[in-house]
């Protein structure tokens, strides 16, 4: 539907991908033909298209040179891009941990989601283990069903449904959840607030958020909103998931992420491939992007959105369903914002060669098009959410407390770094959860059970290692 092809790394299911400039060998092999020169502005030289590995027999040398150049640039960017993701992930975690430590609402047990119906207050450990396994199984199956539903909806072009779903989820998150959050913060700090001021604040926050996320807005503001909604979502999960269930869900969802993104029959992969076949882009609202490129570059963002969207959307939906609302942003919404955006800018268009040529002829309005620094990295919001859930749960329930939180934090960052390194090497969209969550879980349990007693004894005697 868009005349600008998604400049797609292939399996955008990975929640992570890099925006390579045109001639970068990108991830997707299938897309080489369809790939368009939409990133012409980013082209460093005049090569027509980013070839994928299969293609360039005719220009092997060029490709190889670009390859090396790209690789070198990739690695140089690699460090910069890693930091561009470290910062928001850190910020999200800091917000979540700060909230958990100060606002007791999010650590208070007030029931569970309907997706985790079995309680963990049982008499025996065995019963508790069984209940948590059942809870995790139910949650994961709901997520899988939702993802498949999303793929089906997308395949049969029910865009309006998806669109509506997405909008309602954003509304829920931006208005209702932030209202609850603000209320709890006020209660914690004993701030007296009248409803009129509150309504004004929430209204402004929500509307600006909707505009920034679904339409246009300053990059930093959009990033800030995405971080805030990820933090809100993570807090909901931390509050409503009982302990063992939460850890199990984290473990299973990283396996699911791995499977869904990398397996040929994975739902997310199918989603991306369908999007690529149709030369469409997915929603920009569910992906955190480190650079914002308007119009022509919107294409880049969407693949990410796809990647992330499907994943995050599904489980977010679950959580939100308790309020009988749709999933929030993270669910599999597709596209509508992008369409609207495009429509508003260029007028409704169907993809035709003429329109495509016309668009390509447009002067690139991206900043510093030739500047490779403008390449951004994208990370799906679901990744933010689950990283924050892990760290938040660690800070909420660990006996080691700050040591455990810090250890999980470092573990997640290192996992993210490794994932980005793999991304730079394999140059295709990768799942961002498995490595980080694995490290995070290992370090959580190890630090809580092994390191904490050791550090405790050391602190007691004031020994230093």
């Amino acid at each position, binding site marked *: 539907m868009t005349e600008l092809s998604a400049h797609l790394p292939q399996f955008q299911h990975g929640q992570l991908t890099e925006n390579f400039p045109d001639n970068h060998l990108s991830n997707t092999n299938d897309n080489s033909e369809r790939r368009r020169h939409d990133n012409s502005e980013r082209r460093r030289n005049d090569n027509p298209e980013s070839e994928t590995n299969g293609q360039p027999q005719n220009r092997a040398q060029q490709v190889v040179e670009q390859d*090396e150049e790209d*690789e*070198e640039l990739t*690695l*140089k960017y690699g*460090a*910069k891009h*890693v*930091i561009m993701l*470290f910062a928001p992930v850190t910020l999200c975690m800091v917000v979540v941990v700060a909230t958990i430590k100060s606002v007791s609402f999010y650590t208070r047990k007030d029931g569970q989601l309907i997706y985790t119906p079995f309680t963990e207050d049982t008499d025996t450990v065995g019963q508790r283990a069984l209940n948590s396994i059942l809870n995790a199984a139910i949650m994961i199956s709901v997520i899988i069903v939702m993802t498949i539903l999303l793929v089906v909806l997308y395949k049969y072009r029910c865009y309006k449904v998806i669109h509506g779903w997405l909008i309602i989820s954003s509304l829920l998150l931006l208005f209702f959840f932030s209202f609850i959050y603000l209320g709890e913060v006020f209660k914690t700090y004993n701030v007296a607030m009248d409803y009129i001021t509150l309504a004004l604040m929430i209204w402004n926050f929500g509307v600006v958020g909707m505009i920034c996320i679904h339409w246009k807005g300053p990059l930093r503001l959009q990033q800030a909103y995405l971080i805030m909604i990820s933090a809100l979502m993570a807090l909901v999960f931390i509050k409503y998931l009982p302990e063992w269930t939460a850890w199990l869900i984290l473990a299973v969802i990283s396996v699911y992420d791995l499977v869904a993104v990398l397996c040929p029959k994975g739902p997310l992969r199918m989603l991306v491939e369908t999007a690529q076949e149709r030369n469409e882009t997915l929603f920009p609202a569910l992906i955190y992007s480190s650079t914002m490129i308007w119009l022509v570059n919107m294409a880049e963002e969407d693949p990410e959105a796809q990647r992330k969207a499907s994943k995050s959307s599904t489980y977010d939906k679950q959580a939100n369903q308790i309020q009988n609302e749709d999933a929030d942003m993270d669910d599999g919404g597709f596209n509508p914002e992008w369409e609207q955006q495009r429509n508003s800018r260029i007028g409704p268009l169907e993809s035709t060669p003429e329109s495509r040529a016309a668009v390509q002829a447009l002067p690139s309005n991206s900043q510093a098009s030739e500047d490779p620094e403008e390449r951004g990295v994208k990370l799906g919001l679901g990744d933010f959410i689950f990283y924050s859930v892990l760290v938040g749960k660690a800070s909420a329930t660990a006996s*080691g*407390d*700050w*040591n455990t939180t*810090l*250890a999980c934090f*470092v*573990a997640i*960052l*290192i996992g993210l*770094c490794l994932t980005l390194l793999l991304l730079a090497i394999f140059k295709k969209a990768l799942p961002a959860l498995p490595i980080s969550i694995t490290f995070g879980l290992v*370090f959580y349990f*190890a*630090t809580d*059970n*092994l*390191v904490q*007693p*050791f*550090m405790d*004894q*050391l*602190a007691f*005697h*004031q*020994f*230093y*290692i």
Partner: protein
Amino acid sequence: MTLAVFFGCTFIAFGPALGLFLFTVLRDPLRIIILIAGAFFWLVSLLLSSLVWFIAVKASDPGDEPLQKGLLIFGVLFSVLLQEAFRFLYYKLLRKAIEGLVALSEDGCSPISIQQMAYVAGLGFGLMSGAFSMINLLADALGPGTVGIHGDSQLYFLTSAFMTMVMIFLHTFWGILFFHGCETQHWWEMAAVILTHLIVSGSTFWNPLYVGSLVPSYLLMFATGAWAYVLSGGCTQNLLQSLRGQQSETSPQPGS
């Protein structure tokens, strides 16, 4: 305890390290990554040494106090050795990384030198070590309580903060020394690092006799600092010039 204690101890312990981080590491993404990876390596070494200690404790009689203390001392010494082993492993990893960076760079030289990496790696180790020692204490300092009410030292927080600061500095200098020793095959430098680490950790066994632990640690810190400075190419002339705020027209500071 008061906010003053909290902020005071925080800045004593982490102030210099924060300054180092802000002024030398924050600008360069590659250094931030090396820092965090260094922290990670230290964490892994701590994990393994805690595992060993935990197994030893579980296998022994929990009521036997001297035994438990002996096991703890063993745990500390083992942890020191393991930390240095991981420092060596990290050196190996960074060596490979430099080769990769050189291969991928345009002009055949790496954007970061091994000396800079040594400094950042040491800082990473130090920051993580300091954080693990100090953060829970700081969190407790915000809460209610009286230090030393049961007859222990009242200077607990303060000395912990000073000890943490010296450990962070020491790790930084040890990083520089160790990597230099590995680079130039000067085994005595590596041995010196291990020895001084053991001495510093051992001196903390004298706590709460703080004279026995803080004084040697600070002396060793100044000594290793001077040694690391000399190894990094510094000389007294540069030092005096920098103190006077003058630019040096001679060779640029290595590893700046």
